[in-house]
């Protein structure tokens, strides 16, 4: 086991962490899929409104990645397909029946797993609708099966603000996690890494076979896979690694063991505006209302599928995202404006900079709302991005290279080592309010079309 210490970065101490106990949520009255959360997807619907589907039955496939498909997380009737711009299906809504009827999809024999070929495993994962859990670097998209990854990273820690603690999420699922890792070992000739926080390890992580464990300490982004890759084995030219979160590996393992589509996930509900802050065991794709007590949330709130750094804001009828392990609920703050806010010392406002004087009297947790706290400007570099970046890259120069459309320079400067989540802290801490993540994604898109 190796320990890595990350020094640069910042922990956003936002109010409202979830209490570390798992409750079972009621079954949702609506489940759904939102294809837009899969970057670059070109969905082709396999179901029509009014059609009955079984749990695990394919609902749509991705024309841009042959073989990849999404399946129904519950048994029931497809009640609505919400179409967006250019007839893109924004949401496929299913009204669940009382009982699960499982679709007879592909399965793997748990006992003979170690003898199964890589192609068989891939085909079965795709058929079961679980393939999208495997994502790849570079790009941070669904893994491309035609390339063998040099390693697979199973992330057993999360340093994003209010994020679900993977140690809680996999509680009591040690056997499934082990099965998931055996499965992953079929997909790579290289190592499978388990990355965890330092300190005492939960029972589920101890004694796992077939993984190389690395521990990380330090402020966010110490828990991001991008940081782990750069510390453990930086990506060489033409190398690809795959990654997923510990709970996702356990979900794969549950599918291997039971042979049926694993329907439930453990999700942290957190944030200062969340009515109840706790971990929920809830059906995948459940309407977010299920997590907030069934009542529509009143007032000026933002419900986020994911964390406040990397999640996506959801509308009132939104459903739990495929990857979301955290649902954050924070105030919008759309009516809050401070008189001379920029000139006052602001002892009570969170900042990574000492030009906001809260560092003189630090608090454990800060109320944050969803305001920009400033106006967009050109880059004026007072070093905030660099203070947030433990990777050996110069974010300012990388961003400028992307903005100038200089792909070669951008790649030389580390474009392929990062995704939105790795630079989210830069966006957070930037006095000029530049959307660094969007620029990085533009660069990655450019790489895909030209590179």
């Amino acid at each position, binding site marked *: 086991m190796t320990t890595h210490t990350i020094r640069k970065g910042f922990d956003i101490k936002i109010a409202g962490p979830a209490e570390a106990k798992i409750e079972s949520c009621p079954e949702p009255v609506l489940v759904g899929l939102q294809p837009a959360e899969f970057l670059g997807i070109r969905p082709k619907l396999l179901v029509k409104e009014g059609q009955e589907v079984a749990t695990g039955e394919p609902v749509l496939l991705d024309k841009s990645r042959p073989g990849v498909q999404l399946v129904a997380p519950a048994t029931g009737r497809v009640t609505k397909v919400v179409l967006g711009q250019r007839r893109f299906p924004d949401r496929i809504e299913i009204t669940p029946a009382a009982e699960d009827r499982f679709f007879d999809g592909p399965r793997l024999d748990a006992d003979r797993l170690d003898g199964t070929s890589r192609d068989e495993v891939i085909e079965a994962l795709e058929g079961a609708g679980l393939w999208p859990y495997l994502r790849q670097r570079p790009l941070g998209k669904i893994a491309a099966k035609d390339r063998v990854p040099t390693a697979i990273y199973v992330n057993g820690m999360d340093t994003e603000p209010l994020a679900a603690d993977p140690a809680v999420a996999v509680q009591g699922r040690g056997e499934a996690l082990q099965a998931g890792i055996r499965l992953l070992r079929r997909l790579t000739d290289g190592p499978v890494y388990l990355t965890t926080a330092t300190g005492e390890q939960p029972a589920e992580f101890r004694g796992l076979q077939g993984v190389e464990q690395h521990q990380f300490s330090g402020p966010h982004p110490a828990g991001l896979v991008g940081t782990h890759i750069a510390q453990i084995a930086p990506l060489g030219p033409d190398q690809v690694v795959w990654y997923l979160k510990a709970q996702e590996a356990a979900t794969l393992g549950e599918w291997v063991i039971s042979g049926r589509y694993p329907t439930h996930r453990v999700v942290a509900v957190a944030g200062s505006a969340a009515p109840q802050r706790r971990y929920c065991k809830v059906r995948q794709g459940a309407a977010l209302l299920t997590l907030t007590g069934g009542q529509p949330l009143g007032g000026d709130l933002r419900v986020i599928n994911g964390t406040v750094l990397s999640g996506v804001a959801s509308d009132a009828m939104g459903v739990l995202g495929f990857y979301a392990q955290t649902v954050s609920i924070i105030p919008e703050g759309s009516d809050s404006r401070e008189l001379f806010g920029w000139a006052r010392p602001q002892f009570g406002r969170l900042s990574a900079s000492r030009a906001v004087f809260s560092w003189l009297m630090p608090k454990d947790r800060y109320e944050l709302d969803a305001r920009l706290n400033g106006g967009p400007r050109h880059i*004026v570099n007072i070093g905030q991005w660099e203070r947030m970046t433990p990777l050996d890259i110069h974010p300012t120069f990388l961003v400028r290279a992307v903005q100038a459309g200089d792909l070669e320079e951008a790649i030389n400067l580390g474009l392929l080592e990062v995704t939105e989540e790795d630079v989210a802290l830069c966006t957070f801490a930037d006095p000029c309010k530049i959307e660094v993540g969007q620029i990085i994604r533009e660069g990655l898109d450019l790489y895909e079309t030209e590179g």
Partner: protein
Amino acid sequence: MKLLRNLVDSGRKLYHEPGSKLHGVWPLLDAFETFLFTPSTPTGKSGPHVRDYIDLKRTMWTVIVALVPCLLWSFYNNGYQHFLAISQFVANGGANPYLAQGEVGAAIAPQIGWLQWVIFGSSYAPDVAAPGFGDILVFGLQQMLPILFVSYFVGLNIEGLFAVLRKEEISEGYLVTGILIALIVPASVPLWQLALAVAFAVVLAKEVFGGTGTNIFNVALIARAFLFFAYPAQMSGDFVWVAGNGSQNLIDGYSGPTALAAAAQTKLEANHLASEGIPDLVGSAAEAVEAAGYTFWDLFIGLVPGSAGETSALCALIGALVLVVTGVGSWRTMVAGVIGLVSASLLMMVTAGGLDGIGGLPPHYHLVMGGFAFGIVFMATDPVSSPETDRSKWIYGFLIGVTTVLVRAVNPAYPEGVMLAILLLNAFAPTIDHFVIAANIRRRKARFG
């Protein structure tokens, strides 16, 4: 406050939406609105959803706070130098400009400045040999307030104009530049020249490049350089550093050389004496500075003639503390600049024989003389015109220190080197960054052999 907020909210309706009555000039109104109340603009739907409380306004405000000691000092020192000069002038037989001169009937009226007239009345006759604190401060304010006003008025109007043309929010960069310009010009600067310099610098050194964040040179230094090259008579020599009243300098004939000029003189006089076959008896540069009436502590505190607000190394040091603690100014640039200055001046002392001119000046004098302390703290650290990686900041700061000594010692016409040093290194900043970045790229490639 609630009333004000309602006023702002209803005012917002007049310009915020496209098509509303005043939408054409929204950047101006938005600047005013966000000056009063922080904006409530929401973050995007795909995150990050929460943001740091720092913005560019606060960043620039922090620099302004750091500049306050220098600003206050400029109010005091310009008055102090004024009365000191007059009292010496009078002691040497000159006429006191605050008293009527000449025969009864043909008398020249005493010359009193506008603020002195407002506060003390038309019969103001200060004791020039022992002026009170009020006398000093009123004169200093009388010189500085118009300079500040002209600097901000011209600069902000041009910024506003370009923001409206570009349809983007007004950037706060000029809030700092405006004070910087006021502090680095002589307090005797003619205001029309200052206005021209500001307009030149803001338009040609900043707006044509795209505004704050995209300029290559420090805007305040460009304004200073414009004045220096366009109006050398008003901007250099021994006669400009102490301000008087009226358009005609009433203490004309009073020569108040800066400490740097005094040190530079030693070389010229030494040569002169040598050419006449007289042995070199001038003494060291440091002695020449002391002979001109400036002790080290005068120089450190800043009680010497010079540009309006950059004489005090002490005030610059306080400002440096604010910038470094808040993380807004780069301590690397400052430390590297001091290291560069000290090592270059030590080298100069050793190799130049230790006597002639500024080259013979010991490092601790270099640190406190002229505008070096002010320049390295407030202008070398300008985040836009300086290089951006930590490593390049070390190189950049060091070279500014070295170049400052070189300009001071080698250039006989203009002994103040820090302005030219910073401008020169501004030009090289992208090159320094380029090499540091190239090294980073090589290092990253080397990880795979």
